[in-house]
């Protein structure tokens, strides 16, 4: 066996000694999500008309839209079930759903994974105050 180009090898070895590692110290150094990547959902209750197309199209049934009376809707999203595909955002006709790039969503308590976006407050109560 012949050793191919030992000179190149030495320069690579020496170079590696002074190179910075390619990895980052993630939890200590904040990592920015890549632009355009999909994370936690956002719900705009004032835009929702309650057609429930998002519920119908969700592959994992992670989203639930509930009528709280007076055509005001709240959304419950199970982050444990959500696969962050963003199909509900595409299905929504009124753009009441949006996707953010928030990705640090791990929780120790499974109950905290159920995120509820409350309906907007009643308009008549607003007028009274």
């Amino acid at each position, binding site marked *: *066996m*012949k050793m*191919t180009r030992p000179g190149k090898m030495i320069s690579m070895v020496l170079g590696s000694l002074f190179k910075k590692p*390619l990895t980052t110290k993630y939890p200590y150094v904040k990592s920015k999500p*890549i*632009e*355009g*990547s*999909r994370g936690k959902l956002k719900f705009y209750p004032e835009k929702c008309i309650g057609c429930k197309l998002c519920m*119908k*199209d*969700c*592959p994992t049934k992670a989203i639930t839209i509930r009528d709280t009376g007076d055509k005001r809707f709240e959304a419950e999203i199970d982050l444990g079930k959500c*696969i*962050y*595909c*963003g*199909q509900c955002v*595409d*299905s929504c006709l009124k753009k009441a759903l949006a996707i953010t790039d928030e990705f640090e969503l791990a929780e120790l308590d499974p109950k905290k994974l159920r995120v509820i976006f409350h309906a907007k407050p009643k308009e008549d109560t607003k007028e009274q105050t």
Partner: protein
Amino acid sequence: MHDNMEIPVGPQHPALKEPASFRLSLSGEKIMQASVRLGYNHRGIEKACEERTYIQDLYLIERICGICSHAHSTAFAQAVEEIAGVNLPKRAAYIRTLVGELERIHSHLLWLGVAGHEIGFDTLLMYTWADREIVMDILANVTGNRVNYGINSLGGVRRDISPEQVRQIAKAMDALEERTKYYIELASVETTLINRLSGVGVMSKKDVLRLGTVGPTARASGVARDVRKDDPYAAYAEINFNVVTDNHNDIYGRTIVRLGELMESFNIIRQVIKNLPDGPIAVKVARKIPSGEAVSRYEAPRGEDLHYVKANGTESPERVKVRAPTLANIQSVAFMLEDRYLADMPIVVAAIDPCFSCTDRSIAIKDAEGKGKKKKIVDWESLRLHGIEWYSKQGIDFTALNKRFKR
């Protein structure tokens, strides 16, 4: 002369991080006979597809494989579009091609690293996986996810590509091409790599044709079999590229083929971003697909991927059948193992770039009421009850556990 010794390898992660079981009959250190057992990762995806709508299926089908997810979702979308009689917009076809080739790059770089790891060349693993991050970042930027991209929709794609992204892709391709040239040079001069891979896992052209091998495994034995050329889909009919073949017939040949395909992928992506047509990225497809059936083929990084969809006029398919490339290649693994040393087994298995969980589709029941007296067909509920009974006989009671986890 004593009898052959039988040893089981697997099902707990033999060679790679997936469950498959190999039963090897050894004479000394030589494998006399090898048989492959699959089915440890059967997830019932085909059946689950029948209970969901086409839109939901697209995301489920994508999760057949984490590495070649775009292959599966495109093959499924193509079949459904054919039944619905939808013409794919040109821009959508080009974006599908682009993502498909980016996926091929990341898959082949991943394979190169795994192959290096299996032969004890971990430096190669570190190098290729570091380079793979370049293409993973591009995929996350273009599609929204690093894996399971979710770029396909029925009738097109879901995201458009901006000129800024095109510039980034072009830049990344230059960087990756330089690295790939380095790996090609490495594969031609590095004696440890050549000596370890040459003459291992040999399959002649005749055997490839006999066993129906697909993908780079077939192309390394001089069979120019590539769906992108044979039955062009997406935008491949308008793109100039070569089908890379090699005549080494062994794992070294497969390495060369995959490295050559990386270079072809850079070439294809450059053509795609140069000729990206204007226009819409998707057309509307009705939720109800008219009845009909279609077969769709796709050249996944591992070989030909085949999907069959039968529609019955409702919102869900009546039948979906998936044949992942590994299923076509698995018999050649058993063939390649025979008459070889046991130490070659990990790299021979890894060389087809297997994906066992993609492969585990269905179970065929042979001879259910025939000679095998113990075999019988049971339905799901009685199987469940049998399981509970069997465990309670062993002294394990699940009632308390079931109550605890009941929602």
